């Protein structure tokens, strides 16, 4: 009986959320799949022509889309690495016996509280004025110039800013993980004569696996889906050198007016993200250890 009562409580609290989720995620998603089979310019009154699988087939010969795919993969792989390495380093730093640990924790987390759009504009200014200024003063003009206007560097500028934004967030996840490592285990290893490095790699990291799972999942999916920083920092330029997945889809739909084709891209995008993140969760879950 108590169980049934619980179900009512569950319903009371989940139903509103479920309804909202259905309306703004599930239904548009299904409609989106439907549109992917049509050639349509996105203007309500204009005709939709059923083209079957043509939109999906066209994807594989679309060079700009392929380039965007490659850029997105490159961006995601590199930024997952940098975000997690930096985030983990931050977490280790602020959980050590540092005097300014609490202050540092707040400072590291701060960038995450700034919206991606604003962040992009701030960094646009940093790259444009501060970087060129440092370059002029130090004479290192090969490193410090406006990265955003260089086709080869713009993507790294994007990774840089994304890392700056996300590292503080995954730091919090890692801090929680590190604090969950039982003190007696560390102590026991000390007694056994383990060096700090061994303690880190043999005791802390295995016990941190759940934190790795969630941090990698978050950064992977955020990385693939990034749009706001992309839009405000580079706008996809120069010469489409930083046009990532989400932006490519937006441009296809609203720039070129190919609504159906853009939807087909979006579906493929969804499939890729789900496949990659689910694989990652499966792999890291397997490595988690039970205490």
């Amino acid at each position: 009986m108590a169980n049934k009562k619980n179900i009512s409580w569950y319903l009371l609290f989940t139903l509103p959320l479920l309804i909202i989720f259905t309306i703004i995620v599930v239904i548009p998603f299904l409609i989106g799949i439907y549109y992917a089979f049509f050639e349509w310019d996105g203007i309500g009154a204009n005709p939709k022509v059923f083209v079957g699988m043509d939109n999906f087939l066209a994807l594989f010969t679309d060079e700009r889309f392929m380039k965007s795919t490659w850029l997105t993969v490159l961006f995601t792989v590199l930024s997952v690495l940098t975000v997690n390495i930096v985030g983990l380093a931050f977490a280790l730093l602020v959980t050590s016996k540092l005097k300014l640990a609490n202050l540092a924790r707040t400072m590291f987390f701060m960038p995450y509280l700034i919206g991606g759009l604003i962040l992009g504009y701030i960094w646009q200014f940093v790259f444009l004025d501060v970087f060129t200024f440092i370059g002029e003063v130090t004479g290192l003009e090969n490193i410090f110039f406006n990265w955003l206007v260089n086709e080869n560097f713009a993507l790294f500028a994007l990774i840089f800013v994304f890392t700056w934004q996300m590292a503080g967030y995954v730091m919090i996840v890692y801090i929680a993980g590190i604090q969950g490592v039982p003190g007696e285990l560390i102590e026991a290893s000390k007694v056994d004569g383990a060096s700090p490095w061994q303690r880190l790699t043999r005791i802390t990291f295995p016990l941190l696996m759940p934190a790795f799972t969630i941090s990698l999942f978050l950064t992977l999916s955020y990385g693939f889906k990034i749009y706001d920083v992309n839009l405000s920092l580079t706008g996809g330029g120069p010469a489409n050198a930083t046009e990532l997945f989400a932006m490519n889809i937006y441009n296809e739909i609203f720039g070129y007016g190919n609504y159906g084709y853009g939807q087909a891209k979006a579906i493929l995008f969804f499939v890729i993200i789900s496949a990659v993140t689910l694989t990652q969760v499966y792999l890291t879950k397997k490595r988690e250890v039970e205490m």
Partner: protein
Amino acid sequence: MVFNKKFMTGVAFAAMMTGLAACSGGEEATTEGEGGGEKITIFQTKVEISDQLEAAAETYTEETGVEVEVIGTTGDDYLQQLQIRLNNGTGPSIMSVQNSTVAESLKSYVYDLSDEEFVSNIAPNMALELDEKVVGIPYGVEGFGLVYNKDLVNPEDIKDYESFNSTLEKFKSEDINGLGLSSEAYFLIGHISNYPFSLQEDPEAFMDGLTSGDVTMAETEEFLKFGEFMESIRANTTSPLGVTYDQQVGDFAAGKTAMIHQGNWASSLLADFEVDFEIGMAPFPLEGNDKQAVGVGANWAVNSEKEPEEIEAAVDFLDWLHTSETGKKIIVEEFGFIPAMTNIEANDLDPLSQAVFEASNSGETIAWSHNYFPANLVPNDFAPATEEFFANEDITGDEFIANLDAAWQNAVK
């Protein structure tokens, strides 16, 4: 316990029903407001006149009692936003339509204004027409060209390629930026790319030829010359890629830039900067061109999908704006437009607008070809090609023109 369960379900249902009721209530209220013809909405592309338009809307409400809501715009993504609004049923009653390409794609939404009386006042050839019907009232005429600082530049020195090039070189040696462009798609390439098109005998036919593949830019003399101009600009001036419109105009106002490629719309920003030198506008001297590029940047159009009462109210507003004394004053003094209506007089224009107005009256103008470009060609395809040209010194002017050919093909495929 059973009671409890029923109770909880009841509460949940009640909560839901309240929610639903609230929703439907809200909807009804808005439909009533719109259907009653007592409220019109305006969504338009020109950021420069946003505040003035809101003030005009208030004046109109005071005079007639009709409520006018102005929806804010960010400018660049106007068309996307408009499309979203039209699709989800929150489309405005009055919208702006930039040109005939856009009108064509929105043809099921643009209301036929041909029979309205005030339409007959539109200056010859300036009305936006679709299938012989007038669907748009021009905001005003606008023009762009080389906006120059009279203290630094003598217009005689920018009469052809040789003098233009040597002027830029001279400024480079003096550490002044000879010509400023900016990174926004239209200010980077959209406007300046007009010249080789507009200098063709029949620009529209030429563009049709490009689309069908009968001609290419790479085989056309004017475009190759244009490539040389762009090479000269790249070699002698600061790269426009990191520059915004505000910076471009700001540097010009501060005397750090001698010329900018801009239009009369820049005067309001220049006024904000309190420029202390005289400015002028010179034609871009491609192939010795000595005519200003003058055209219509945007048009007012009425959304035909709305209720008849709302359409009528929208037309009334446009009528008021273009025929009443208050409305005409707003167009000229508040919006700062150069009127494209024969019944509106223009006095006290700023120097740039004056130059455009004079050119327009004398007929010494070339057309705005970019109004006939494939939809979104400039931001989608021309801008990336141009960014590549400015970022990579190895690309020659000829290669750049070939890239523009490819960009055109990509846009029409």
